[in-house]
């Protein structure tokens, strides 16, 4: 606590071991990556809406930066594939995971469990400084001969192995960095939650956000290594000429592939990849659920309904998510018995998800809701998650999945979960905890512009995709299905013909993406201007929240808490009947200025009838 002012700029802000600084580093870096991912998509949507037209404004820049694949400022099919692969990779591995886990997990978990820092501060710093080179290698790969990886964010071999670009090798190396980074992060979070909880903070008193981060950490810890194994094997395939994923008798462009020993299996990669891939989906969505829970409890001013069900559900999701992965592979073909197994587990996993949704909905019931900006985003999360979840059910069943899997339907489905879902929850979190991190409020009006604009655009982007997919539009087509549609004149019963309306939706989506990008500008402005010139907070607990992170000075110093913490109660003690009892001296001293409070913080001693705090031994 004492040393913070003695540290130089580099030790304090660049190579810091303070979990809050690292959390903010993660936040800024991953938000930058989100912006890059959005930019890539903006250019791809231009190409889809106007196939073969040079990209306006940045076309020349693209050509000079990327050379031949962007000739005349147009996005060639190869470049489209690169952008598609990198959009997925950047958004998931460099954007959302570091955001929900690295940024929010780092900043909030130690605060919410009452710890002074993470269990391993230096390892925490290392985790961030492995993530940065991973991201840089990913970005550099755009400029190597042949361009960035082109085989999708899933990097399926043999395609990934035979495409003649070094970008794929860069992709694999970068992934190894990122995997190691999140491995260190997850070890840190789990150890912190197990070992550094303050006295009295029993497992069932943990804020739900901590639970979600805890389960997320386990998913990262146990699901990432098989992908690491896969990356090592694919690196061997690319660099040492082995054939882990290359089958016998492979034919490339009509020619038998030479120089291969064969004997491998592309499906092996898919298993290793999706063993990570599915838990990864829950990595993307569990922590946002936690953020939304915190925001909803605070803004409805009542306890979360069914806290125990929430915890049980998040544990069940964590467990089940490890045994559902092959539903991503139904189209590759598998025996009926095993397909039934994965279909069953996939259907079962929707139950805890629905339980969580139901608990959060019920928590709204009868609450005196404050429609603050974070609350708006949280409410939008609920509906987006509902749409995303429900549209996912057909993907659980092999029969409907085979028809829908390679269409725009699935793109619409999972983007509903991660774009208006996860990203909105992240915005809710940023608006909610911003006052704690900076000591200043974000601007409400700009927040409303940001929210309503994003909400409309998100739905204009992703809902049409569901329609296009059901109409039969395949995904991954660089011309937006133009040639595919033209090759099959629009007759009754001709598979593949897309109606004019379906094709026109490409244009709608393109404009909506552009508008979505534009609506992020108020947020970016708001973020930086409020950080330096926003309205100052009037107390350490401006939202009148109950959890421990609000019991620190604002912004929290190195070491976090100035007095020792003890926890006496559940996390969401809002509007409890006994809180309306006459004020005790302890509650008056809690910064209330004599106003009657409708909440009790977790560290507030239990009041006895005589007005004195109970001498309760805090259970460990």
């Amino acid at each position, binding site marked *: 606590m004492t040393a913070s002012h003695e540290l130089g700029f580099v030790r304090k802000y660049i190579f810091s071991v303070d979990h809050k600084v690292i959390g903010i580093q993660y936040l800024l870096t991953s938000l930058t990556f989100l912006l890059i991912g959005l930019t890539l998509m903006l250019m791809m949507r231009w190409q889809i809406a106007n196939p073969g037209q040079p990209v306006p404004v940045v076309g020349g820049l693209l050509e000079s930066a990327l050379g031949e694949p962007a000739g005349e400022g147009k996005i060639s099919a190869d470049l489209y594939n690169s952008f598609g692969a990198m959009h997925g990779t950047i958004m998931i591995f460099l954007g959302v995971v570091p955001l929900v886990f690295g940024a929010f997990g780092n900043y909030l978990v130690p605060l919410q469990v009452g710890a002074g820092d993470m269990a391993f501060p230096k390892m925490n710093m290392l985790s961030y400084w492995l993530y940065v080179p991973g991201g840089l290698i990913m970005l550099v790969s755009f400029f190597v001969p042949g361009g960035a990886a082109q085989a999708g964010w899933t990097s399926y071999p043999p395609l990934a192995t035979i495409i003649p670009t070094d970008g794929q090798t860069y992709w694999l190396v970068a992934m190894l960095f990122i995997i190691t980074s999140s491995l260190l992060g997850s070890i840190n979070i789990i150890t912190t939650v197990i*070992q550094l909880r303050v006295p009295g903070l029993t497992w069932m008193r943990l804020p739900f956000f901590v639970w979600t981060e805890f389960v997320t950490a386990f998913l990262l810890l146990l699901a990432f290594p098989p992908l690491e194994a896969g990356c090592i094997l694919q690196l061997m395939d690319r660099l040492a000429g082995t054939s882990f994923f290359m089958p016998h008798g492979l034919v490339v462009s009509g020619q038998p592939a030479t120089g291969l020993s064969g004997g491998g299996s592309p499906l092996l990669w898919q298993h290793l990849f999706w063993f990570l891939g599915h838990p990864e989906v829950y990595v993307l969505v569990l922590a946002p659920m936690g953020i939304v829970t915190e925001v909803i409890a605070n803004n409805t001013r009542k306890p979360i309904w069914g806290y125990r069900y929430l915890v049980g559900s998040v544990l069940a999701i964590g467990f089940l998510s490890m045994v559902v992965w092959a539903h991503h592979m139904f189209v590759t073909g598998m025996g009926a018995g095993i397909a039934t197994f994965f279909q069953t587990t996939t259907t079962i996993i929707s139950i805890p998800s629905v339980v969580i949704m139901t608990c959060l909905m019920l928590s709204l019931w009868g609450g005196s809701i404050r429609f603050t900006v974070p609350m708006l985003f949280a409410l939008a999360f609920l509906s987006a998650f509902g749409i995303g979840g429900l549209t996912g059910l057909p993907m659980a069943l092999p029969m409907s999945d085979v028809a829908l899997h390679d269409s725009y339907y699935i793109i619409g489905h999972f983007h509903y979960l991660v774009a208006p879902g996860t990203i909105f929850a992240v915005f809710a979190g940023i608006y909610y905890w911003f006052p704690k991190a900076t000591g200043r409020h974000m601007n409400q009006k700009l927040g409303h512009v940001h929210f309503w604009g994003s909400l409309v655009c998100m739905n204009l982007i992703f809902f049409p995709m569901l329609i296009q997919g059901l109409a039969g539009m395949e995904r991954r087509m660089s011309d937006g299905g133009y040639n595919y549609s033209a090759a099959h004149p629009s007759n009754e019963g001709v598979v593949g013909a897309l109606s004019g309306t379906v094709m026109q939706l490409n244009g709608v989506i393109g404009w909506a993406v552009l508008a979505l990008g534009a609506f992020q500008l108020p947020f970016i402005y708001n973020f930086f201007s409020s950080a330096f010139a926003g309205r100052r907070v009037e107390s350490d607990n401006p939202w009148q929240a109950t959890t421990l992170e609000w019991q620190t000075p604002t912004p929290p110093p190195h070491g976090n808490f100035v007095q020792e913490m003890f926890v006496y109660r559940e996390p969401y003690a809002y509007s409890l009947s006994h809180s309306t009892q006459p004020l005790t001296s302890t509650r008056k001293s809690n910064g209330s200025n004599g106003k009657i409070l409708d909440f009790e913080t977790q560290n507030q001693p239990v009041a006895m009838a005589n007005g004195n705090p109970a001498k309760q031994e805090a259970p460990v």
Partner: protein
Amino acid sequence: MKIPYTSEIREDTGLYNAKIGMWLFLASEVMLFGGLFSAYVFLRIGAREGEWPHGLLNIPIGAFNTLVLITSSLTVALSWTTLKAGDFQRYRRLQIVTLVCAALFLGIKSWEYYDKFSHYEIWLNKPLTAKEYPQLAGHSTEADLPITSVVGHIEGVGPFETLASLQEAGMSTVKIHPDAFHYRLTALQQAERRKVEKATGVRAVHAETDEHANVSIDVSHIARMSAFVPKHGTFFATYFTLTGLHALHVVGGALAFAFILWPGARMWRDDPKRYTNSVECVGLFWHFVDLVWIFLFPILYLL
């Protein structure tokens, strides 16, 4: 800023931080090697009949290396207890034995690698019969069955050569010392063969009779040639990836031990309990590396 439970034990969990961190790391390592073992099982089961080679690795050397590694595990475990008893000098002696074992293991492994890199398989473009090359009699169960490939060291040819590099060097014939025939049979084929031997009482031609017979092969008869490098086939790809990754773990563990043994020993003066804990944690890692080898040895060398 002091973090609690770095050396003392938290009462309700019974653990200090580093120990739970190390076990979490080991859990992820279990998943990493689990993924690689899954890949092994997947490829092994998916291999076409007779495709998975057998007996290409040196079993006595592998067994000796196993003993080296478990000895190092013992010295690690003992050194921790001596450190708990406060005997730093004995701990240091034991740990030096550990490091020597690690170096020995890696040295032997490198020698094995080098031996494989200079070990060749030659596929012939014109199948030969044992009649034409009597020295190859042991390579086939029947004297007139065509022999399509020969495995062995080539006289005067070092590691990593290819057919193209031999042609470039102007070699017209290669002199190969073929390996014993059983190297090229699957376990099932071997079992079948033993049954036949038992029933007929006739012992087939065996390794010792033909192991060192040289065979000269015309370079123009060679269709393909590959040293035992990862590219050779799925078996060697698996072998080199798994053992290579394991060797990297040995290097990592040895470096960590060496660090706490010399530069990190200052901590013994400041916080002996924490120092002992760090030895325990790296020890956990070391035992895990040993444990991986316990599985690697039979599945790669023997099965």
